[in-house]
C-alpha cells in the first residue's frame, strides 16, 4: 500500500473512532483522544474519576468500535487471581477419563475492562502485572500468549478509599496513561441527560478491527523524532529525579521520580499523537501535551508539595517549565532565536486551546441539535 494511502487510512480511522465514541460519550474529548493514542501505541490506560462520569461506558463503547473481543472484570476484594487469569480444572471427557483442562479467565480478550481495580487485593492485582506488560498468562508453569492487540483499561474511584488497595508502583508503571475523567461541564451534563433520555444503550458502531489497529501502530512507529525533541523528553523524565545532578527547582516537590518506561511512553505516544493531529513529526507540543498522562501516576510528590497545596499535575506543569527554560537558554546561545521560539510556542498553545474550546462548543451544539431532532422524531 502506498505511504500516502496508509496515512490517509490512519486519519480516516481515527476520525471514525472518535466520531463513533462521541455517539456514546458526551464531551471528554481529551480523554477519548488520549485513550485512542494509548490503544494505538499499545499501552494500558488507568481511568480515574468519580462514579457516573462515563468511564465504563467509554471502555465498552471502545470495545464495540474497535470490533475487538471485550471482557469486563469487576474487581472486588474477594476476587482471586485465578478468577482473572483462568485456572486448570479437572473434566471428564467423553470416554469418562478425567483430564486437566485450562479454563481461560476473562483476561483472555483483546480489550479488558478492569473495573475498580483498586478494590482487588494486592495478590489479585499482581496477577495483572505479567498480563499487562508481557501480554501473556502463566498458570501452572504453562504460558498462554494473549492475542494482539491487547489492552487493559482499568478504572478507579478516587473517593472511596475504605476497603481499597492502592496499586503498587510496579503495576502503576505498567499503565501507559493515567487519565483523570473530570465531572462534565454544565453543557456536557445537559447533553448527557438529553442523550440518555433517548436510550441508555451504546450506539457506537464498529469501524476498525484489530488488524487495522496493528497497522496503525506500525505506521506510527515510523514517525520521525528530532534528536532535540527526544532529548527534551528524556530530560523531562530525568528531571523528575531529585537525586540526580541536573535537578531543577521543581524537583524539590518530588519524592520518587518516573521510570524509564515513562520516556518510552512519551515518545511512542507522541508519535501517535502527531499523526493523529495531521503532523508527520513529533514536536515539543506533543511531548508537553502527553507529559501529564504519562507522569502523573509515575511520580510521587512529597510533603513540600502537599504543604504548598500543589497537586501532582501542578508539579508536572512546573517541571515542564523548568525543563523548557534551560532548553531556551541553550538554544539562545546556539541560535539566538530562543525568545522567538518560545513566543511562538506560547502563541501556538494559546491559539490551539482557543480552537479546541471553540470546537468543543460547536460539537456540543451539534450534538444537542441532533438529539433534539431525534427526540422530536
Amino acid at each position, binding site marked *: 500500500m502506498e*505511504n500516502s494511502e496508509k496515512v490517509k487510512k490512519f486519519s480516516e480511522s481515527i476520525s471514525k473512532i472518535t466520531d463513533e465514541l462521541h455517539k456514546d460519550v458526551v464531551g471528554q474529548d481529551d480523554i477519548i483522544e488520549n485513550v485512542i493514542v494509548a490503544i494505538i501505541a499499545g499501552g494500558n490506560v488507568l481511568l480515574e474519576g468519580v462514579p457516573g462520569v462515563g468511564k465504563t461506558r467509554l471502555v465498552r463503547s471502545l470495545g464495540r468500535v474497535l470490533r475487538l473481543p471485550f471482557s469486563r472484570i469487576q474487581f472486588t476484594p474477594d476476587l482471586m487471581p485465578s478468577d482473572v487469569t483462568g485456572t486448570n480444572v479437572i473434566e471428564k471427557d467423553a470416554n469418562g477419563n478425567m483430564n486437566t483442562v485450562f479454563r481461560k479467565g476473562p483476561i483472555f480478550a483483546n480489550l479488558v475492562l478492569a473495573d475498580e481495580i483498586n478494590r482487588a487485593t494486592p495478590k489479585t492485582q499482581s496477577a495483572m502485572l505479567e498480563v499487562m506488560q508481557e501480554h501473556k498468562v502463566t498458570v501452572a508453569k504453562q504460558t498462554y500468549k494473549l492475542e494482539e492487540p491487547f489492552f487493559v483499561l482499568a478504572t478507579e474511584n478516587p473517593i472511596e478509599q475504605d476497603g481499597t488497595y492502592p496499586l503498587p508502583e510496579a503495576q502503576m508503571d505498567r499503565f501507559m496513561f493515567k487519565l483523570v475523567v473530570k465531572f462534565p461541564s454544565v453543557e456536557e451534563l445537559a447533553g448527557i441527560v438529553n442523550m440518555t433520555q433517548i436510550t441508555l444503550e451504546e450506539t457506537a458502531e464498529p469501524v476498525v478491527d484489530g488488524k487495522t489497529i496493528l497497522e496503525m501502530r506500525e505506521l506510527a512507529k*515510523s514517525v520521525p523524532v528530532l534528536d532535540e525533541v527526544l532529548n527534551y523528553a528524556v530530560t523531562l523524565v530525568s528531571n523528575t529525579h531529585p537525586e540526580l545532578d541536573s535537578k531543577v527547582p521543581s524537583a524539590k516537590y518530588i519524592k520518587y521520580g518516573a521510570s524509564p518506561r515513562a520516556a518510552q511512553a512519551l515518545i511512542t505516544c507522541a508519535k501517535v499523537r502527531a499523526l493523529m493531529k495531521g503532523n508527520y513529526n513529533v514536536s*515539543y507540543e506533543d511531548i508537553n501535551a502527553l507529559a501529564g498522562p504519562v507522569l502523573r501516576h509515575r511520580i510521587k510528590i512529597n510533603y513540600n508539595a502537599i504543604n504548598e497545596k500543589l497537586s501532582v499535575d501542578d508539579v508536572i506543569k512546573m517541571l515542564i517549565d523548568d525543563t523548557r527554560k534551560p532548553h531556551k537558554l541553550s538554544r539562545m546561545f546556539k541560535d539566538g532565536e530562543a525568545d522567538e521560539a518560545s513566543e*511562538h510556542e506560547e502563541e501556538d498553545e494559546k491559539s490551539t486551546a482557543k480552537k479546541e474550546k471553540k470546537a468543543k462548543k460547536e460539537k456540543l451544539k451539534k450534538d444537542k441539535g441532533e438529539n433534539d431532532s431525534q427526540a422530536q422524531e
Partner: protein
Amino acid sequence: MSENFGKLKKFFKRYTAIKCAVCGISVGLFSAGALLLILKLCSAEIFALYYALVGIGVSAAVGVPMYFILRPTDRKIAKRLDAEYGLNEKVQTMIAFGGSDGEVAVIQRETTDAKLGAVRPRLRFTEILKQAVAPVLACAMLVAGIAVPSVDSGAGTVDPPYEVTEDQFAGLRQLIKDVKESHMEDNLKASVASVLEGLLETIDRDEDDMMTDSEMVVTVCTAVSVIDGLIASADSYIVIGGELKKSQSLEKIALAVLEGVTSYKADNTRIKTLVRVNEKSERADADIKTMLTESTEEFNKQFDELHDDGLKSALVSLCSIFGELLDSTGYAEKNDGLYKVFEVFLADLKAVADNVGNGYHTSALLKQIANAGSKLTNDGTTVLGVQAYNCMMDEFIRECLSSIFGISLSQFPANSDVVYSGSDSDNPGGPSDPDDDKNNSGGAGDGDELYGSNDIIYSPSKDDYVQYGPELSDYHKIVLDHLDRNNVPDEYRQFITNYFDILYGGIKEKKN
C-alpha cells in the same frame, strides 16, 4: 534539499551577509570616529588616510569573522523558520531526516516543503530597528569626531599662581654665588650676576602679587636670554672664525677656532655644577691647543714649496685678504682678545713678507712663519679657553635655572636665536651690518620695518601678553634713556650697548 527550503536558505544567507557587513562597517566607522575624537581632544593629529585604514581594517576584522560565526546553517535556518512560522519542528525534522526513506518521513518532507512554498520570508520591524542601532551610533560617533574642534593644549588652560619655594630661592642664591666665584672676566661676571640678582628680586613677591606659571616661565626665559646675550657679546670666536673661514688659506685655522671652543661638547655630558665647568675647561684648553697646533701646521705647509717672489706674492696676497676679513669682523675698535691675537699674527706675516728679498733665507722665512703660528697657538689657546669657559658657564647657568624652576631646556630660547638670528649665508654668525636690511630678526624697530620675531611675551608694564618686536623697541628706548642719564655703571654700558648692537645690527633711525 527541498527547493523551497533552498530559496529560503539563500534569503537568510544574503540577510546574514548584509547584517554582518552593516555591523562591520558600523564598527569601523565607530572606531575611526572615536580615534578622531580622541586625537582631537589630545591635540594630536595623524594623516587623514590612517583614519580610513583604521576604519577599513576594523570593519574587515569584525565583519568577516562575524559572518563565519553567524552564517546560517541548514539547522539554524530550519530552527528559525519553525520558530517564526509556528511549524512545530517540521522544517528541522525535514532537514534532520532528509535522507530517510521511512514511510512517514517521506510524506513529512513533502508536506513540509509544500508549507515552505507558502512562506514569504520577512524581516520584522523590530529586527530592522535593532540592526539600525549600530550604524546610527557609528555615524553619531563619526560626526562627533569631525564636528568637535581640536582642543588647544594651551587655550583655556588654567594658569595657576606660581609659588616660589625656599629651596628655589636658595638654589638661585647658590647659582649667583657660583657665578661670582667663577673664572669669567670680571665685567661679564658682574653683569651676569646682576641679571640673576634681578631675577631673584623679581620672583620675590607677596602672596597677593604672585606671578602665574606662564609669567614665571617668561621671566626666567627672559633672564636666560639676557645672559645668553651678555656671554655671546663677550665671545668673538664665532664672528672671527666665521669671517676667516672665507679664506681657503685660513680655513683650517678658522675651523680650529670654531670647533675648539665647542670641543667640550664632544662627550655629550651636561654641565650641572661649577666643578664640572672647571673640569671641562681644562680639557677644552688642551683640545683647543691641539687643534690650533694642527691647523697652523697645515697653514704653514702652503708655503713649503714657495720661495723668493713666489713666497712674497703669496704672503702679500694672504695678508691683504686676511686684513680685509679681520676688518669686516667689526672688532677693530673693541679691544677683543681674539681679534688682537689674529692682528698680531697678521702683523707677523706682514713682517715675514717684508723680509723676503732682504737677505733672509727661505728656510728662515718659513721658520718665522712657523713661529708666528706657534705664537698664534699659544695666545689663541688662552683667549679661546676663556671664551670656551664662557660658553660652559652659559650652559651651566641654563641647567641650573632649568633645574631650579622646573622649566625644560627646550622652553628656553636657543642660544643661536638670541645672538645670531637674522644672519644669512654671507654673514654666518657675524653681527649684522647696521645698514643691512636683510637683518630682519632678533630685534624690532617701530615704524614701517619690524625687526625681530613675533613671539608673544609678557609685558609687566602693560600687564598683558604682547608681541616681542614692538616691546623690544620700547625697552630699547627706555634703556637708551637711562644710558644717557648716566644711570648705568660704566662697566655695564658696553655690554648693554653690545647686546642691542647684536640684536639690531645698529640702531635704525625711525622712518617717518
